[in-house]
Structure formats: C-alpha cells, structure tokens
C-alpha cells in the first residue's frame, strides 16, 4: 500500500538494487568499545534490502549496540568507540566526510518507549520534513503528514485530533505516531529497538501488521526480546551472545533447526 509517498531515492543513487535481495547494510569486522569494555566483537553481517531482519539475544549481548551503530547513535556516547566498517549501499557511514544528519534521515529509528515530541500530532510528523526541507509548500507538507500517518495506520484514528498533543494518544498510537514521524522524512532503513515491549497485545499486533506493509518500501532492522515476534515478523534473524554474532540465517532455520547450540539453548529457554 504505497500511497502518494514521494519516491524513495531522494538521498542516494540506488545503484543495482534489485528484487529486494541486494545487500542494503553490510558490516565487516565491527568492534565496539565503551571505554575499556568491549561490547561487540568482530561482527560481520549483510542485511538484505526491503525486508525485516531481527536481532535476538539476552540482555547485554550487544544487539542494541549494533543497531545504534547503523545510524551512528553511538556517536552521542563519549566513551564509545566503533572500529570496523559499516556500509549502506556500499557507502562507508563512518566516513569523516559523511553528514550524520543526512545519515539519520536515511536511517530512521523507533525506540522502546514511544517518545513523541510534546507538540501536536501534526507537528510531530511535520517536524522532520520541515527541517529537511522536503515540502515546497504548506499543502505539500500537509500531504506528507497525512500520507505518513496513513502509512503508519494511524490516520483514521487521529484525523480529528491532529492538533491535540502527541502525548495524549494511547501508547500504541504514540508508537505508530513515532513510526509515522520516522517515515515522514522518507528514510530507506528503519531501526526498531524493542518497539512493542511497552505495548499491549492488540497494539503490538497493529505494529507487526504495519511492519509487514513497511517491508514493501523499507529495510527494517528490529531488536526484540520476544522470540515469537522475531519468528513472526522477520525473514532473517541474527542471534547475539556476549558481544558476538553467533548465528545469522533465514528465520525459519534459526527457529526450527539452529546450527549453534547456544542459539538453540537461547530460543528454547535453556540459557543461564
């Protein structure tokens, strides 16, 4: 259901991306340190274009750290040091000449706790397109806001409350508002860090339904503690443990017959 969203390729020439099978994000030899402590060890992974990749693993395994490397959110942590190479469509995102603001427009993020701005529903979504200069006129901006809200499956529920505060919405609605806010700047990748862990099952189901629709146009990387959720929404799954990427593969293989014993122990609840 691609509505009247403008084309995706505004921010980069898309090269030979075909059939949703091409590599979107590629990480090679990624090591991350928080001060002396090593949080990620030699992570290598290829994330395919247009689909959902799930990261699973026990708390502290490094999956969120890795997720935050993909849009350089770790830059905000003073003691954090990232070594290795992460590319989006072949472009090194840790290149010193790269504009981090532009990068984060290409790589949107949705957090565990819905965090709408203390502004109206409309302004929450309009903020990004406005600062990135995506709208030529007021009508243009309205169009982007409505399309984004609609794409996030929220428009019908909030169309009469666009001027109400974003924080007045329910938790599930707030989370979908955050997704609408993320897609309003036409990203290519959406990172989701446990997007449903603060939501009830119905709101969770709505987000999962939305994710399925989003995969037509976006590459989604999700960190989740719910194995069932990973099994439901993703096409590929990666299991992290103690800072290492233990195993990565098609989701049905990871959850049916994982190759590594640690993966099996984790997904069947035998860890510890």
């Amino acid at each position: 259901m691609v509505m009247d969203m403008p084309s995706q390729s505004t921010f980069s020439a898309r090269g030979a991306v075909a059939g949703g099978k091409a590599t979107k994000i590629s990480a090679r030899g990624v090591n991350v340190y928080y001060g002396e402590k090593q949080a990620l060890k030699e992570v290598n992974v290829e994330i395919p274009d247009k689909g959902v990749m799930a990261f699973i693993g026990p708390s502290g395994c490094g999956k969120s750290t890795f997720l935050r490397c993909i849009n350089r959110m770790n830059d905000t942590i003073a003691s954090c040091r990232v070594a290795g190479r992460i590319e989006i469509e072949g472009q090194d995102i840790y290149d010193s000449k790269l504009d981090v603001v532009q990068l984060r427009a290409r790589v949107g993020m949705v957090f565990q706790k819905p965090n709408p701005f203390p502004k109206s529903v409309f302004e929450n979504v309009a903020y990004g397109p406005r600062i990135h200069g995506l709208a030529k006129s007021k009508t243009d901006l309205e169009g982007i806001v409505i399309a984004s809200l609609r794409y996030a499956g929220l428009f019908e529920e909030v169309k009469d409350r666009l001027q109400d505060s974003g924080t007045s919405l329910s938790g599930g609605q707030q989370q979908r508002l955050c997704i609408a806010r993320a897609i309003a700047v036409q990203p290519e990748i959406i990172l989701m860090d446990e997007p449903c862990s603060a939501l009830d099952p119905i709101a969770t189901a709505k987000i999962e339904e939305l994710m399925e629709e989003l995969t037509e146009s976006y590459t989604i990387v999700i960190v989740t503690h719910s194995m069932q959720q990973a099994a439901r929404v993703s096409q590929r799954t990666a299991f992290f443990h103690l800072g290492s990427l233990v195993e990565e593969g098609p989701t049905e293989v990871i959850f049916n017959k994982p190759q590594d014993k640690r993966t099996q122990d984790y997904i069947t609840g035998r860890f510890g």
Partner: protein
Amino acid sequence: MNEHTVKSFDQELQSLDRKVAQMGGLAERLLGQSFDALERRDPKLAENAVASDRAIDLLERELQEQTILMIARRQPMANDLRHIMTVLKIAGDLERIGDLAKNIAKRALAVSGENHPKPLMTGLKHMLELAMRQLKDVLDAYSERNADKALEVWRHDERIDAMYNSLFRELLTYMMEDPRNIGLCTHLLFGAKNIERVGDHTTNIAENVHYLVHGTALIDDRPKGDDTSSTLIRKE
C-alpha cells in the same frame, strides 16, 4: 541437553516421553496378544486385546490434550517444538497400530473353528514377528533419539512388504484350489494386510524420529515392496 530455566517445562516434556513409552509398551503387548490369538485361538485373548486397545486410546487422548496445552502455554521453539509435534504424531500412529492389532486378534478368533493350513499360519506369524521387532526397534530409536536406528527400521519395512506379497499369492492359490477356503483365506488376508499396515505406521514413527533428531524430513524414496494392488489372478 541443558535444562530449561522453567523446570516444569522439562517435567512436562519428560511426562510426554513416559506416556509414549507406555503407549508403545501397550501396542507391543497388543501385537503379542494377537500373535497368541493366532496361535492358540482362545476367546479370552480377544477380550484382553480389546481392553489393551482401550488403554492405548485413552493415552492418545491424554497426549493430544497435553501437547496442545503445551504449545499454547510454552510456545515451544526448535527442538522442543519438534519434540512435542513428534509425540503428537507418534501417539496417532501407535493408536492406529493398536486398532490394527486388535483387529488381527478378532480375526484370529473368527477363524478359530476352521482347519488352518499350517504353512499359511506360519507365514502370517513370521510377518507378525517381524512387525513386532520393527515396532520395538523404532520405539528404542525414539527413546534413544537415534536417527540411524530409525532409518534402519524404515528400510527394513521392505521385508514385511515382501512377506505380504508372497502370502497374498499363496492365499489366492488356496482360494482357487477350493472355494471352501475363501472364508478363512479372506480373514487371513485381512490379517496380513493389517500387519502390513502396522509396518507402515512403524515407518511413519521412524520418519518422525528422523525429523526430531535432524529437523528435516526423510525424503529419499523408501523401498516399497507391496505390489499386491496390481496383482491379478491370471485366467488360464
């Protein structure tokens, strides 16, 4: 295998295996009873067989309920999910084996008054013995999680098929020789067919053991020896 963090999950899985072992034991005993029924033609044996079959049915129902509850409650993954699904399927096969064995015992009694040609009875008993050994081996393979052993059982089913073929031809000959044999031979033919079916359910269990251990289905073609469906009486 490490234990689950939730101990009661392990206990539930163990309880499934206990019940499968119990069902398997009952199915073996029931086949033994039908063997005795063939040999001794004692009406008491048929009653015993019916009672054993009821116990098997009851266990199957219990296992069905238990596995469905576990899936709903635990949302099992990987080997746990395969374990639970395998138990559900094996229980179904053992239940069918119980029915077939009961049917053999009943037929053995139905023909108890008649004069049994010795070679025919010997053939049938051999076939049943082989089916019993196959069942025992596959149950061992399950409890040991031994996929190689299961594969062996799977391959050996061909022998039962071969015996069934030759018995089938023999019975046809007897019936053609003297129409008075038809009643007896028909019962024996059904008996043989039932044993052949026991063998097929045993191979199903073998396939499930393979799936449980390896997570993949047994896909190469099993050697099949039963060609009776295309056998005809040739007109002279």
